[in-house]
C-alpha cells in the first residue's frame, strides 16, 4: 500500500513541476 501511495505522490509532484513548463495547451487540438 505504501508503494501505491508513493507512486501517486510521484505522479502528483511530477505533474506539478511539469505543469510549470510552457507546454502547448491540451485543449489546443479540440475538435
Amino acid at each position, binding site marked *: 500500500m505504501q*508503494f*501505491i501511495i508513493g507512486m501517486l505522490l*510521484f505522479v502528483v*509532484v511530477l505533474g506539478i513541476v511539469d505543469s510549470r513548463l510552457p507546454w*502547448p495547451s491540451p485543449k*489546443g487540438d479540440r475538435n
Partner: protein
Amino acid sequence: MITGHFGLAAGVKSKAPQVPLWALMFATVWLDIIFVPLFLAAIETLSAAPGVPPGYGGAIIHADYTHSLIGALILSALLGWLASIPWGRFSGMVIGLVSFSHWLLDLIVHRPDLPILPRNLFGLQRLGFGLWRFPAASAVVELAILLAGAWLYWRAALRVTGERRRGRNLATLSAALISVFGIIILTLDITGIGG
C-alpha cells in the same frame, strides 16, 4: 514492471507535448489502477511462480480481466475516450495508446499469464515472453526505458522553454525527478521494500 511504464510515458510526452505528463503517467498504470480494487476483492490475484523465490519478477499475475488482451483494449479505449472529452481526439488517442502500451510491455516481461479474452474464456493460450525469468535483464531493460524516456522528455522540455534560464532549470529538475523517482521505484520493486 512499473518503472518501465513510467519511462515510456515520459518519452511519449516528447512526441505529444500537449498531453499533460500526469495524464500520461496515470494512463501508463491505468490497468494496474483498476487491478487494485479487483485484487482487494480477490477477483484478481497474485501467486508465486513455481520454483522461484518471491520477489521481483517472481509472480504469476491472475489478472484475467484487466490484463487480458481484450480487457486491456476496452479499458484503454475507455480512458482514451474520457480524455478526449476535455482534450480532443488526438490527446485521447495518445492516452488510449499509452494505456495499452502497459499490456505490450507486460507481454515482454510476464510469464505466460496474460489471457487473450477476459476470464480466459475458451481456455486460449495465455501470453507472456517471460523476461522476468531473468530478473537482472528485466531490471536493465526497465532502467533503459526509464532513462531513454527521461532524456527524450528533457530534450523536449528544453525546446519549449527556449533560452529562459529559469525554464531550463525547471526542465532539468523535472527530468531529474523522473529519473530519480523511477530509480527509487525500481529499487523498491526489486528489493520488495514498501510492500
